[in-house]
């Protein structure tokens, strides 16, 4: 008989395998969808144009770009029932749901086996954190058609969860005294939730930058005129994505929700620190990084409101913010010295 703890590990690996399949499906979708989803008329037109341009690539005209992006915008906001039904994206989403159910089961069995919340060592942070990433992604699908982020999210989760399971797995052990607190439940959970939301904002900002590059290239190509050498304007799937501006404002919305949760994490963490260590704030390494991340995102929000900073620059700040979150979770947890020695990877001395 498998113990609950072992069952949990099996479920985790099953989830990873399913996410990997979802990743493949989503990637396949991105690679093929651009050609397929053009409706009949546009497809015919594009063919015609291609004939005329004699292999001159498929740089859309400004009008076409607008039409493309309007269509993508409508698709983004369409209610789940009215969405396009690309086969591989649907397979990807179905698999992601399946993997998610496995992961939720893995998380719950781990928690039951430990007799406490399953987020008290580094392996468990990763387990719960990535579960929330998938959860937030699946939840947001009810509001926006973000399936173009599916490959990014499932890929990230396969990577994070796979690497932590391989390298940082620790068997369940009793909680250290400072962790025995209701704040463990709140503070760590909200931090993970914020991270999950930041991940989506990050993905959208990356898409935004790619889309922006494509838009610029299209404009440049048009200025250059049709006689010039054919240009490549960027990955094909981008033509199904909303405008960079629309991606940016969507990214911002995720980021500010993440920011609120992160602010809460910061405050809840300092309340807990006061109970456990006798001071609200002591510039412990982990506190420093939580603060740095908070300030970077505050900077990002300001950048969005500052002339000359909206667009590319603020997108980069969002990307830097999420990189800092990942850095905090990996490098700071493992290599930086401090009071937060709860990775469970070394016995405290």
């Amino acid at each position: 008989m498998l113990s609950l703890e072992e069952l949990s590990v099996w479920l985790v690996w099953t989830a990873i395998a399913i996410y990997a399949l979802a990743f493949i499906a989503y990637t396949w979708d991105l690679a093929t969808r651009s050609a397929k989803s053009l409706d009949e008329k546009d497809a015919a037109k594009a063919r015609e144009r291609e004939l005329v341009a004699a292999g001159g690539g498929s740089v859309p005209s400004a009008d076409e770009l607008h039409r493309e992006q309007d269509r993508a915008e409508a698709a983004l906001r369409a209610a789940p029932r009215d969405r396009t039904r690309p086969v591989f994206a649907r397979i990807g989403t179905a698999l992601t749901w399946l993997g998610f159910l496995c992961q939720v089961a893995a998380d719950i069995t781990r928690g039951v086996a430990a007799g406490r919340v399953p987020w008290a060592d580094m392996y468990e942070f990763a387990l719960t954190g990535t579960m929330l990433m998938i959860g937030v992604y699946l939840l947001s699908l009810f509001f926006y058609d973000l399936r173009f982020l599916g490959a990014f999210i499932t890929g990230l989760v396969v990577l994070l969860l796979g690497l932590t399971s391989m390298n940082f797995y620790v068997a369940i052990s009793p909680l250290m005294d400072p962790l025995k607190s209701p704040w463990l439940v709140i503070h760590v959970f909200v931090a993970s939730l914020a991270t999950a939301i930041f991940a989506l904002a990050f993905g959208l900002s990356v898409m935004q930058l790619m889309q922006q590059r494509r838009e610029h290239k299209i404009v440049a190509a048009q200025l250059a005129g049709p006689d010039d050498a054919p240009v490549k304007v960027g990955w094909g799937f981008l033509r199904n994505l909303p405008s960079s501006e629309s991606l940016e404002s969507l990214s911002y919305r995720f980021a500010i929700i993440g920011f609120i949760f992160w602010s809460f994490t910061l405050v809840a963490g300092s309340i807990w620190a006061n109970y456990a260590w006798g001071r609200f704030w002591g510039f412990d390494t982990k506190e420093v990084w939580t603060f740095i991340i908070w300030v970077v995102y505050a900077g990002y929000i300001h950048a969005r409101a500052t002339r000359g900073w909206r667009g590319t620059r603020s997108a980069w700040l969002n990307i830097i913010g999420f990189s800092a979150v990942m850095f905090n979770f990996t490098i700071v947890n493992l290599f930086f010295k401090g009071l937060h020695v709860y990775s469970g990877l070394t016995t405290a001395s």
Partner: protein
Amino acid sequence: MADRDAEAVDPLRPADAIDGKGEPADGTGDGITSPKLGFVGWMRWGWRQLTSMRTALVLLLLLAIAAVPGSIVPQRSADPNGVSQYFSSNPTLAPILDKMQLFDVYSSAWFSAIYILLFVSLIGCIIPRTKHHFTALRARPPRTPARLARLEDHRESLVELEPGEDAGHAASRAVDLAASLLRKGGYRIERYDSRGSASVSAERGYLRETGNLIFHTALVGVLVAVGLGGGFTYTGQRVIVQGTTFVNSVGTDYSSFNPGRFVDPDSLTPYTLKLDKFDVTYVPFGQKDAGQAGDFAAHLTTQLPGQSAQTGTVRVNHPLQIAGDDVYLLGNGYAPTITVRNAKGEVVFHDTVPFLPQDNNMTSIGVVKVADGLPEQLGFVGFFYPTQVKLGSGAFSSAYPNLLNPVLTLNVYGGDLGINNGIPRSVYALDPTGMTQLTGGKTGVKSIELSPGQTTQLPKGYGTITFENDSPAGAKDQSQAVKRFVSLSIHHDAAGPWALAFAVLAIAGLLLALFVPRRRMWVKATPAGDGLRIEYAALARGEDPTLKAAVDDLAAKHAKALDAAGAASVPDQAAKAPSVD
């Protein structure tokens, strides 16, 4: 800008804010181009630079970058031992880093400069905006723009007039309906009727700016609370051995005490704390993580002056509150009771000595100093093993943190303890310079080794030493043979509660500032042919992703209300009809 009049009540933003109304972002403004700028001019220009969005942004990013080194280099405030270690392992680099204040990043001149500038900028930003916001709160919504169609979110519909209805009257009635819908939706409204058309101008979301101001002001509050409150805060540390009592008073009982600038050390409430018992549980032998300690609990008897004694418990995550102070459990360990007698059998030393734990199994080190009563001063450096085992190398070690096989070993030094010359000495360390080692090491004399209750001879026939058994009468094992001590940390925190209150306020403000949509809406009805042309338009102030939906929603509701009103007016006219006939 579509609505010039409207600008009068815009939230005042720094000039380079996205919806600010100042000069272009390349920033130089008119200041730099004008050739002669007097002192006041320069000051004004500098102030405007400092309170611009760009400066705030750059300072925020600088603050984030400046905070990084403090997480890489050990900090004196958080990890003083780490700093000492760093100095000994990097003797050339450390002094250079020290010059750059890299061991005190968060109190360094450069870090302080950044956040002080940021907060000056912040205050410079808040004050004019607050004033402006108060005016805006009392102002009426702005005049309806002449050409609503130029706004991006704009809808239009045509409504047929009832036969014989006056167009101007109908327009006015339609706008009345819209106005009441808007008012119900939380808008502040103002009618602007002109010849030929009726319109309502509506505005909502003042709370957005209020939230923004609350947020930024609360940040200043946090900083002030920390800065001022720190002056009234004190922390102190003290080791208490089981059965002994601590009095909260500086000078006598604290082993270390750090008062804030405004703390009067003589005014502490002189309550007492006595350690009755210390509990801890260990994961038993044979299980995974055997020996891991948990559920620490120091059971105290507390007494405030003039009141009766009470009992209380200090646990991790559960400080004890007394007289406005919080008492925290910092550490714990064993405190063997040791008696030294001279050759005549007179007691020259008798004390319970805290030994500091060195590892998870509570191998502990302690020092005993016997200054008087013997032919020379003696110093003992001791190891205490709660569960002694012998390693392959022959060295002793502790295999478990509880008292299963407690053993005390001591090396004896004779000579001058150096405690008579007034230099303060740590009670936990022995400086053997000027002393001769009498046992252990290369002396050829075996180190002293004792179990609870045992007595042995001191070298050179100086007398005897006893490791007392502190078990209560009738104890069957050694589990209570050695007393425990705890180290307590006592805090009086005047800043915390205020800082926390401001932080909570900041988050509340943030929620308003980020999620309350601020927008203007206009509904205008103009007679056109046989009907009315009704226009709906909206303008977002700041981020407002639901604007489009809001216009659609208003247009739909208004159409419905018009229908209902029309339907209601039909029977009305039907009722009137006979009398007209």
